[in-house]
């Protein structure tokens, strides 16, 4: 059994590695493309904030996904099957992610793991025990999450374009409006951490405490942005290029925001099933909710950073080089729209995908006339890859399950 546990940990690490190689890289590509971050800086930002998001907010989502699609109680009598199944699901999701990374497909880690869990669920406890309601919400999220991310990004870029780019003096308008944008980012970011977020650190703030605190944090950030902008303020005429340079700084903030939201939302995918396996191994029984030890979250974080450093940088570089028409104002809008949607969904426990949301956000910026050209034909291929993710990860997971059972069972 010890061999199996070591193997399971290795598979969990492999899954985290794949999240770092594919998903994180997708999320950081826009920052590198606009030139707001260099490759090294992007990797650093991702490493720090993914880790932070995973450890601080991560666990909240874990149990929802794991327990949502398949009830662990079904395996109360057969904890071994549950352990093999969880390991198989991790492997299935990880292998599918690897395939997607190689082919440059922006698929969801969340949906890969759900598809994989469903795959082994069907062959062990049957179709009837799969929570098809959760599945329906996932299908719905293929439409809703890009739509939400897209709408937010559309509105953000329209705001920037109306109030700043098209104003009489774009630079002065940036000095005027940018602090508000920073305040909103600060507010949502801190709210996602403080409000029910710090369970891992045993700091559970109610909304009446968290709300005002976060307003204060957002306000403070906005105010310091204002002071900083005023101090370095130099009249540069009507140049939109100067605005873009300022927004490159703001985009660093949203890049952190995206990495944090992603860590909060997606790292749980790798460590959730692992937490389930560890619980069975240590206690011999399984409950509806497995406690997620912080060391497992840390392991997930390490795996992601490793994936980012060994392969993800290639994906970031590919995307960054190919989207040179993205500018910091566009990148800021897309990332803000995507990260806000993801954090809100994480809070609500909805299994949405960072990548899907970001794709929607990029399209939203395009529809706000922010991009030189938006290739709508690709959307069909992208959505197809989203749909295929569920059965593909499920199928690989089934194969892995039979293999693991015959090896260790």
């Amino acid at each position, binding site marked *: 059994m010890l061999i199996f546990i070591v193997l399971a940990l290795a598979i969990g690490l492999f899954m985290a590695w794949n999240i770092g190689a594919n998903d994180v890289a*997708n999320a950081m*590509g826009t920052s590198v*493309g606009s030139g707001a971050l260099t490759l090294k800086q992007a990797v650093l930002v991702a490493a720090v904030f993914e880790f932070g998001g995973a450890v601080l907010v991560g666990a909240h989502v874990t149990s929802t996904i794991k327990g949502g699609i398949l009830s662990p109680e079904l395996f109360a009598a057969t904890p071994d099957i549950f352990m093999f199944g969880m390991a198989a699901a991790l492997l299935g999701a990880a292998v599918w992610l690897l395939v997607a990374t*190689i*082919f*440059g*497909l*922006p698929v969801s880690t969340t949906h890969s793991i759900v598809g994989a869990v469903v795959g082994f669920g069907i062959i062990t406890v049957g179709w009837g025990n799969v929570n098809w309601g959760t599945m329906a919400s996932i299908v719905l999220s293929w439409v809703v999450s890009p739509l939400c991310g897209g709408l937010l990004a559309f509105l953000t870029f329209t705001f920037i*374009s109306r109030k700043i*780019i*098209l*104003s*009489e003096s*774009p630079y002065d308008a940036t000095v005027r409006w940018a602090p508000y944008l920073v305040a909103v980012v600060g507010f949502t970011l801190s709210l996602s951490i403080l409000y029910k977020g710090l369970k891992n650190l045993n700091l559970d703030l109610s909304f009446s405490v968290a709300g005002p605190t976060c307003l204060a944090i957002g306000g403070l950030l906005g105010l310091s942005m204002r002071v900083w902008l005023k101090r370095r303020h130099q009249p540069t005429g*009507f140049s*939109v*290029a100067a605005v*873009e340079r300022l927004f490159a700084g703001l985009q660093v903030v949203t890049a952190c925001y995206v990495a944090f939201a992603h860590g909060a939302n997606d790292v749980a995918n790798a460590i959730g099933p692992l937490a389930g396996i560890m619980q069975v191994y240590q206690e011999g029984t399984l409950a509806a909710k497995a406690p997620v030890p912080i060391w497992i979250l840390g392991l997930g974080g390490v795996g992601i950073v490793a994936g980012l450093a060994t392969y993800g940088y290639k*994906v970031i570089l*590919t*995307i960054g*080089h*190919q*989207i040179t*028409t*993205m*500018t910091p104002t566009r990148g800021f809008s897309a990332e803000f729209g995507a990260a806000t949607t993801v954090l809100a969904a994480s809070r609500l426990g909805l299994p949405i995908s960072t990548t899907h949301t*970001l*794709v929607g956000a*990029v*399209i939203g910026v*395009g*529809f706000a*006339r*922010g*991009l*030189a*050209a*938006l*290739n*709508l*034909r*690709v*959307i069909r*291929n*992208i959505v197809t*890859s989203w749909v295929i993710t569920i059965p593909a990860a499920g199928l690989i997971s089934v194969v892995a399950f039979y293999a693991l059972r015959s090896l260790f069972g």
Partner: protein
Amino acid sequence: MKTVHAIAELFGRSPFGPLVRHTQKVHECVREVKPLIEAFLRKDYEEVERLYDRISDLEHEADTIKRDIRTHLPKSLYLPVNRADMLKYLKEQDAIADTAEDIAVLLTIRRTKIPTALHDEILLLTDKVIETSDLLVKAASELERLQKSVFGGKDAEQVIEQIAQVNQGEYEADKVQTQVSRHLYEVEDELDPISAYFTMKLFRLLGEIANHAENTGDSLDMMLSNQ
């Protein structure tokens, strides 16, 4: 294996960079018209042939850029400007180079002697026409930068002002064309009918360059305001 990442693929190829390159190529064509006409007037037909080849090559290059832009504009590409306006713009701008080539062709097919009395005014007309094209290039070269400012704001206002100057340039070229045509008939006794026809045709083609420049400017204006 080289994979184009799907997120990167969402960003379609920008047509604005190639459009500016087309502008510049077309203008290179137009700039050769002055030495071409000078050579023709001083009866240096070898130089006329050489310049014809040069203009023809440049026109061909502009054509290639035009076709490249068109083939990369599938319906599935969402653009921040009206597609029809953009295609009209491209078509009119390309017609400038076509007309420059027509002039070069005309000057190689017949060694017409144009009365010396008209020379100065023909060169003045040529200057006016090239000036109009110059004004257009100034406005059209901003297209790529305009995309970054969402085709509005101060940058767009400046371009719209420059387009007004293109229209003014065309108006002035028109006046010179009328004037030089009048003078042609004043010295009609020195000319055989075919030479007169030929010279009139040269005037008309020169005027057409300015006309197409004006139309190009108008389509650019449409692209900016038709939102």
